[in-house]
């Protein structure tokens, strides 16, 4: 018999929430937090606002002996670690990350896995700048020979700390989380831009189904709220342009042809998911069941590197939704609420909406569509976990959040199943079905 997998812990850390309870309040009342970038001077960029996480502090979210290791964490890793702690606490798990003494753990390390979606982590431009400035030619270009340190007296690359590289390896998110919580089962780092977290959750579900683990930390974390992250997105022309004087609500408007684009948002989204009887045996609170999952590749994401004609549909996303429903043994009529990505770039939103409408048929117009990107920014690798946490809360509380982005005239009386789906920058698509 197929093993059933449930969600028992939520760690949705984003600009509107520092833990699961604050997230529930913020999401149900459609709060937004897109604010002027504080961590550096963004004045050279057209996009100067972002979704930012101000609390909790990383040092408060790791065991005391581990505080020293926070110095080698990129912001992305900090967000993953914070979200994992929040999810473990919310799930009522006792791991070595939650207790200073090492007794009475509620997890079996060898049967606990960790799959985290990550992004390309930008190195700290300020740190690199200080170092490479010591290896400049007179014309301002970089000198390899001054950078190398074989000549006596040359400082060059020694201006970077010895563990510099470790800060930027994407697998460090999962490495720190596995070390802190003692998770020795299968561990993966899945790169999929906005699809990263949903792919990680789906793969975790499969790992539990195939009996390679009983419990997984699953989700994603990313922060592009740094100079290089912002640069990459601005060069791609995907960002809403707004300065401190502008109202972000006027710039990023899902499904609105006048929308300028998205804001970037930093976030860590983590779920604790478990095999159903494992959860039952420890009397865990169950938010929802993971009922179906599918992943596909779309061949025509709208990237400026290809000479594609614009399209108003996304065959890959449509098929991901259809296959996820099939995996859950459900039909479109069983879905009562949908959580799309909706980045606020009109052509991408139109494609995404087209795919959801094709996959769900008339049902698409009968159910609320809840978007988060306009409220917390495009959280990229964290997105799917933040959206899945919102869906899980809606199902467990049987509450449709205020002000759905698309609202049916007759909202459903009950929420039986939720669909969370996303396209992504490079065309990877994923869909997840959650059941009450």
């Amino acid at each position, binding site marked *: 018999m197929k093993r059933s997998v449930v969600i028992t812990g939520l760690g949705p850390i984003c600009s509107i929430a520092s833990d699961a309870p604050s997230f529930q309040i913020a999401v149900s009342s459609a709060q937004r937090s897109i604010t002027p970038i504080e961590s550096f001077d963004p004045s050279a*960029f057209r996009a100067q606002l972002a979704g930012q996480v101000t609390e909790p502090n990383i040092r408060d979210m790791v065991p005391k002996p581990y505080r020293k290791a926070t110095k080698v964490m990129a912001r992305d890793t900090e967000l993953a670690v914070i979200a994992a702690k929040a999810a473990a606490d919310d799930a009522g798990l006792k791991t070595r990350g939650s207790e200073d003494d090492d007794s009475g753990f509620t997890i079996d390390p060898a049967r606990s896995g960790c799959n985290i979606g990550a992004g390309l982590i930008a190195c700290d431009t300020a740190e690199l700048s200080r170092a490479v400035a010591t290896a400049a030619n007179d014309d301002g270009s970089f000198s*390899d020979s001054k950078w190398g340190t074989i000549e006596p007296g040359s400082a060059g690359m020694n201006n970077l700390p010895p563990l510099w590289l470790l800060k930027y390896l994407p697998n460090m998110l*999962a*490495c720190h989380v596995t070390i802190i919580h003692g*998770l020795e089962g299968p561990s993966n780092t899945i790169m999929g831009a906005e699809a990263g977290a949903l792919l990680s959750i789906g793969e975790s579900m499969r790992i539990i189904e195939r009996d390679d683990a009983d419990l997984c930390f699953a989700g994603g974390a990313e922060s592009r709220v740094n100079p290089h992250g912002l640069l990459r997105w601005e*060069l791609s022309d995907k960002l809403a342009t707004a300065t401190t004087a502008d109202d972000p609500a006027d710039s990023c408007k899902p499904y609105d042809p006048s929308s300028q684009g998205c804001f970037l948002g930093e976030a860590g989204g983590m779920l604790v998911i478990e095999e159903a009887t494992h959860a039952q045996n420890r009397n865990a609170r169950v938010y929802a069941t993971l009922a179906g999952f599918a992943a596909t590749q779309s061949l025509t994401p709208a990237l400026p590197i290809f000479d594609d004609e614009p399209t108003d549909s996304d065959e890959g996303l449509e098929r991901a939704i259809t296959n996820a429903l099939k995996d859950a043994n459900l039909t479109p009529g069983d879905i009562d609420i949908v959580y799309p990505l909706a980045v606020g770039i009109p052509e991408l939103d139109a494609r995404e909406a087209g795919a959801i409408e094709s996959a769900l048929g008339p049902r698409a117009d009968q159910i609320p569509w809840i978007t988060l990107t306009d409220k917390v920014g495009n959280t990229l690798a964290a997105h799917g976990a933040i959206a899945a946490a919102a869906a899980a809360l809606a199902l467990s509380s049987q509450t449709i959040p205020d002000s759905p982005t698309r609202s049916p005239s007759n909202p459903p009386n009950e929420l039986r199943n939720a669909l969370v789906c996303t396209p992504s920058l490079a065309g990877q698509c994923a869909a997840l079905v959650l059941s009450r």
Partner: protein
Amino acid sequence: MPTNDPPSRRVVITGAGWVTPLGRDINEVWSKLLNAQSAVAPISRFDASTYATNFAAEVKDFDEAQFDSTDHKSAGRSTRFALAATDDAWKNAKLDTNPIDPSRIGIYTGAGEGSPDYDPYLRATIGAWDHDARSFNSATWGAQALATMSAAPEIEQEPQLTNLHIARRFRVTGPSLNCMTACAASTQAIGEAAEIIRRGDADAMIAGGAHSMIHILGITGFVRLTAMSTRRDDPATASRPFDVSREGFVMGEGAGIVILESLESAQKRGAPILAELAGFGSTADAYRITDIHPDGKGGAGAMARALQQAGISPDDTDDQGRPLVHWINAHGTGTQENDKTESAGVKSVFKANATKIPFSSVKSMLGHLIQAAGAVELITCLKAIETGIIPPTANLKDPDPACGLDHVPTTPRDTNPQGGIKVTLSNSFGFGGQNDCVCLTRFEP
């Protein structure tokens, strides 16, 4: 412990392709490996002459420009490696002549990040340092970077772009994942891709990895970690896994791609069956970001699980007293710590059998291809199964007693008198403690 369920679907390998520092033609590279030929030489891609490590195993004679006039004109170097390797694997698997529904073919790579467009990037980064204030000026950086850097090279650095280019070239639209678990990545990608086929979410998967870190900051990062050999006076012998005098790994680059397929699909198409992917194990050390668990227990767990899934007992022997695993392709990086802990892991899994199983490392010749290492090395397992010959660990003159296994020093081993090679394990362990192992078996219907 997990139950050893019979897998729902058998998974076989029907095609393989690679781009390695010793070349692209599989048989040609294989004979170089059997001759213990090293691909390691001074770095030519940039001026590394003053770097503590100034050598690597570079891919040479690869025509990057072959993709310039195509859909892949902006693709980065490692993506081009991946496309070439997939071209070969695709043909090898007869997918050009005996096709599969493209929506039932997925992609699972351990594809690494691309490298920056260094000149404008480092000029902007140098220019943004305010020497008087001793601080970084992000407004200066932003203005110069926006004016001089362009979108395509930045987009192409995203690791998932490799999947997109492969998907567009072969028009495949099934599940698409890319994992970045450092040195474990492409073994993990291949193992997880097999699971996707087993559970029926795809009929075939393009699986493997591609990576090149032979660029300024890639080499810098590992020099700072002091993880690489610094044998500047004799690069060709610098990669010496299991030798007492080993002092670090040597960087390589390249790509390896295999076509995984359900047995029924392969048989229906009349595709060549190169081997069966019989088992996969994946664990985390959960120990330290900089060190491997001293017992090698993470690697041991991955090997044990791969064997369990394959239904092979590590303690048993055949009628001739030969252990059931005939070659272990070692992760064998040539760092003091890896080789010792990996050997300890093998001993803990195989106990009395451990010293009877050949355990060698082709990184001694190819260098360490980081994310691509596992896939390239898995293809050497295919060749070992096909030929019955085990590639040697080159440069191994003085085996370290602390490793103490059958390391096949300097010359290859012909196992055909003992019945050839029916079962191989391939280990890949990532920095930070991700451990993966894949078990291949000679295909028997």
